[in-house]
């Protein structure tokens, strides 16, 4: 156990993780998430989704965005861009976009349906 930790530390020293690059990658993900979340809100509001249907729509759409990010932005190799691909790419900032989603969802629901 200790040997593997040491080995990992050594690997990190040999291939260091540059903080500014990590920050940039996270920023790109966050921007895409925020933009798409707002657009999904427009879609959900126009479709007239209510309560759980809307949130499920958001989760499914975020999943689609994750797949697109995986395929297009990282070329199927998220390990090259993220230290922890699961947390940073697949789940990263999903809930950060939720407030933007609710905002546009409410707005367009109010304009179109109610």
């Amino acid at each position, binding site marked *: 156990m200790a040997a593997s930790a040491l080995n990992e530390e050594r690997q990190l020293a040999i291939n260091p993780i540059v903080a500014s690059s990590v920050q940039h990658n996270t920023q790109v993900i966050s921007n895409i998430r925020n933009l798409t979340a707002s657009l999904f809100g427009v879609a959900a509001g126009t479709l007239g989704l209510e309560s759980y249907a809307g949130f499920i729509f958001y989760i499914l759409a975020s999943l689609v965005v994750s797949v697109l990010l995986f395929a297009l932005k990282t070329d199927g190799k998220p390990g090259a861009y993220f230290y922890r691909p699961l947390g940073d790419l697949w789940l990263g900032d999903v809930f950060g976009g939720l407030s933007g989603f609710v905002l546009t969802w409410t*707005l367009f629901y109010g304009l179109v349906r109610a």
Partner: protein
Amino acid sequence: MGQPVVQTIHRDPALFWWILLPITVVMILTGILRHYAMTLLQSTPKKADLPKIRQQRSLTRGVNLRANANVISSSSFAARKAYMVQAYQEGKFLAEPEQRGKPRPNPMSDPAAMEGMMGMMKGNMAMMIPQTLIMGWINAFFSGFVIMKLPFPLTPQFKSMLQSGVGTRDLDVRWVSSLSWYFLTLFGLQPVYNFILGSNNAANQVSQQMAMANGSGGGMMGPEQDPDKLFLSEAENLEVLEHRWILEGIEDRLVAKLAAVSV
């Protein structure tokens, strides 16, 4: 009663033009204004005198040496370590060597610390004043209108907050007044600011309050600490650091990597 009747309200379409749109525009503009106000209010750091700068920079030097120790060879690391540790322990870099071992003066009397507190006050003011003003503005002009229906149900506890100024007891909680649109924009406009102002803007008060709650401890404590103690602890950190040169065995690694590529 079993299935409640779906309540519908016919609203004037002008409500959108005269309430929803103005609030949104005002919120966006306030965010932009706050961003530029914060940029203007940022006081330029005061010029410190030479010994103070030397004290601070030499401490940073120790920290940098510790962080990057692995990229220099063992002998040069040992030489640097010996020099830094000795200088730290003797207090060579101290700005006021005669103050060593004496208790620190009251931080309130230190003008530099007061400066930092003023900066924090300004930041707080730039957040609080627009928030209060806009809340008052919305309450004064737009209270009493039901402007929109939320697409998701809420528990009745929200009724008093979201339907403030609407005196209808049996109205579904999903019908909300203008103040709740204000709250939605307050939390949801961060992406808009991101796209208008760039990513590290100072527009959103919510994210700023979070940052302040996290960061206030470190920033406030910084200037008050005894520099001598900081130096001694840094010397100790350097002493116990285990040094491992990154270029050790580089030939073997390189050969192994090239062999793996060529196969």
